[in-house]
């Protein structure tokens, strides 16, 4: 009972302190809007526009059809038609175009002889995404045009219509749906740096931590109160995100609110405890804040929130199994987009639960009332 009273009093003190800092209040208000309306809109790893220079050395009807085929594609833009590869290369070097397509001389006659010569596709791969996707789009486009041409020569190309595709859960590839879990994660991480990190370092700087250390409060109460403050603020932010999301984008479904609450709570508790652990091992403001941002940035970037987890090298994926942020993102996406229930996510929940418990107890155990 006494512990509970202490805990409440301490949490109220922390909340008041946080609300009196203008920077923190600004972040609490601005951050959900910033992330939902700005960050969620800019993530797009597709290919919008690839500028192509063509070098048509054949000048036949087939080569013109290939060029037209690329012109009709949404993703490809014909930026230049050059007469020689060197001219085209100069454009690529300057960055005017990203890709050169060279159609060799006598291409049409080689197609008529059913032994097509090679078309050369040269891409600027400084941007890897552009290189990979660009090559898929360009060669796919050329192949489609070519197979139409070949059919006219009476060659049946076993068509691609033997395969039908269905896209489940997010068929229109809506990046907003995809990004909402990421928004929740970035908010969680911003809060734990800006709330727990700064409040610990402020207490250390102003010397009030020494005062707390000699108060009759147990260290478990003290640490839990710090975590609880951060957690309460994060719940508020979560409610704001869910509310704006519901108003602006119509997500999530009501049935998903409870699973989201459970998952987010477990993660938030763990990550808040984590920033207490970091501050236990550091002394100055810069150290605490640098260390918290460094580690949480890495957790966040490895979580699959931005780029797919499976694109990482195998050994990093193995390490990543211990990254709670990965389970948060994966399970939130399942809940948001696939309508998964808690029973589908037993693995995720148990890992998050375990990590929250471990981090919380470590935070309490490593907290030292005695100064070094």
């Amino acid at each position: 009972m006494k512990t509970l009273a202490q805990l409440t009093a301490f949490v109220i003190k922390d909340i008041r302190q946080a609300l009196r800092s203008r920077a923190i209040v600004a972040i609490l208000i601005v951050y959900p809007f910033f992330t939902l309306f700005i960050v969620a809109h800019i993530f797009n790893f597709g290919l919008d526009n690839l500028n192509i220079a063509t070098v048509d050395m054949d000048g036949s009807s087939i080569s013109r059809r290939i060029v037209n085929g690329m012109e009709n594609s949404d993703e490809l833009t014909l930026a230049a038609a050059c007469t020689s590869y060197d001219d085209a290369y100069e454009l690529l070097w300057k960055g005017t175009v990203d890709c050169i397509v060279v159609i060799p001389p006598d291409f049409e006659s080689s197609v008529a002889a059913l032994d097509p010569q090679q078309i050369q596709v040269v891409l600027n791969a400084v941007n890897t995404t552009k290189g990979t996707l660009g090559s898929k789009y360009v060669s796919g486009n050329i192949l489609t045009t070519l197979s139409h041409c070949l059919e006219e020569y009476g060659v049946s190309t076993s068509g691609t219509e033997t395969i039908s595709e269905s896209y489940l859960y997010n068929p229109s590839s809506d990046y907003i749906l995809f990004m909402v879990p990421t928004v929740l994660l970035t908010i969680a991480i911003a809060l734990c740096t800006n709330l727990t990190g700064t409040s610990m370092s402020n207490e250390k700087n102003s010397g009030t931590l020494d005062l707390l250390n000699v108060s009759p409060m147990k260290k478990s109460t003290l640490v839990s109160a710090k975590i609880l403050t951060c957690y309460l603020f994060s719940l508020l932010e979560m409610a704001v995100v869910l509310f704006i999301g519901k108003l602006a984008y119509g997500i999530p479904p009501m049935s998903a609110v409870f699973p989201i609450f459970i998952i987010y709570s477990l993660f938030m508790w763990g990550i808040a405890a984590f920033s207490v652990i970091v501050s236990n091992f550091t002394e100055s403001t810069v150290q605490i804040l640098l260390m918290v941002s460094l580690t949480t940035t890495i957790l966040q970037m490895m979580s699959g929130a931005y780029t797919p987890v499976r694109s990482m090298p195998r050994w990093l994926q193995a390490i990543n199994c211990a990254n709670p942020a990965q389970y948060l993102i994966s399970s939130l996406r399942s809940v948001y987009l696939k309508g998964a229930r808690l029973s589908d996510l037993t693995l995720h929940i148990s890992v998050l639960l375990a990590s929250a418990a471990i981090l919380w107890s470590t935070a309490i155990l490593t907290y030292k009332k005695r100064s070094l």
Partner: protein
Amino acid sequence: MIRRIYLIFKKEWLHIIRDIRTFILVMLMPLLLCNLLSLVFSTDIKDISVAVCMPESSPRAMEIVGKLQNNPAFRFRGFVASAAEGEKLMKSDRLDAILIFHPDFDRIYEKIDNGDSDFTPPIEILVDASNCVTGNAAAMYIRSAVGHPQSASDIISEKMLYNPGLLSAYTFQPGIMAYVCVFLCAVLSAVSLVREMESGTVDALRTAPVTRYETIVGKLLPYLIIGIVSTALAMLSGMLLHGIPMRGSISAIILLTMLYIITSLLLGLMISLFCTNQTNAYVISLAVVSLPVLYFGGIIVPVENLPDWGRHISDLLYVRWYTDAIRKLMIQGVGWSQVLRETLNISYTTMLLLVSCIFKLKTNR
């Protein structure tokens, strides 16, 4: 004057060196972030988890399954009894795609072989599109692995210039380096300037026989050195660990990086003029520097992929121009003349920051 600046520099340097843990952290941060994140930031599609639903076993279908099993892009997760069972696995995020063979698979193929064009598709792919990055790509990969008997390489020869292995580190390492550098330079210099105010030592500095500008130059110099050394370390480690080339003019790389670091330090100075305590300075530099740079600087998302308004924002950020220029210089190997536009854009920001810092310092008392 040089001597007075040197003395302030020496004092600040001692502060930094004596806080050895922070110093080590600051030096390790670019190394760790650059090399780890350039492995993490990759949009290559690998290890697509696929399960197969085959109501009736047929040799022809097994051949297709074999193709999937032998393809390194996929991770074969075995057979599922029904699409519903596969979807359940998908919901717990253990599966990216399910390949469903029609129960009459063989008969439909006979029809196709006989030239009949009226058939239901014998193969269906269910793709988990909840991940926008992998969803479409997974479908495209399965299609090309299963569908095309004749490979595209017969007709089309592809050449990837400047980055033949399509290593994503080539794209991301320069960007992350730029990010870490602006983060360190701006945050550290802002916090160090504010610390003097918070601890009250600024009064001692005010009464010392040095001018305000000498103090500021002297205090920023050590961070210039830290910035240069950490960027150099990041570049070197990138070259050694990821084989990132340094093809362009070295003098351009060095000078541009210097300009970039100086601009970042001025940004830190600017932030410090608006703050009174260290945590505020830190939080504000995170909000003002770190977030916009990360999202609009072309570091995670390529600038071309931003919406129009996002591109306008990114045009205003000097970090974006530096990232562009350094990618061109390091990976593509261009010379000075090709990065003039970027250099000009960075120098605008430098001048603007310089003038406003001087103005703010003049009016501040």
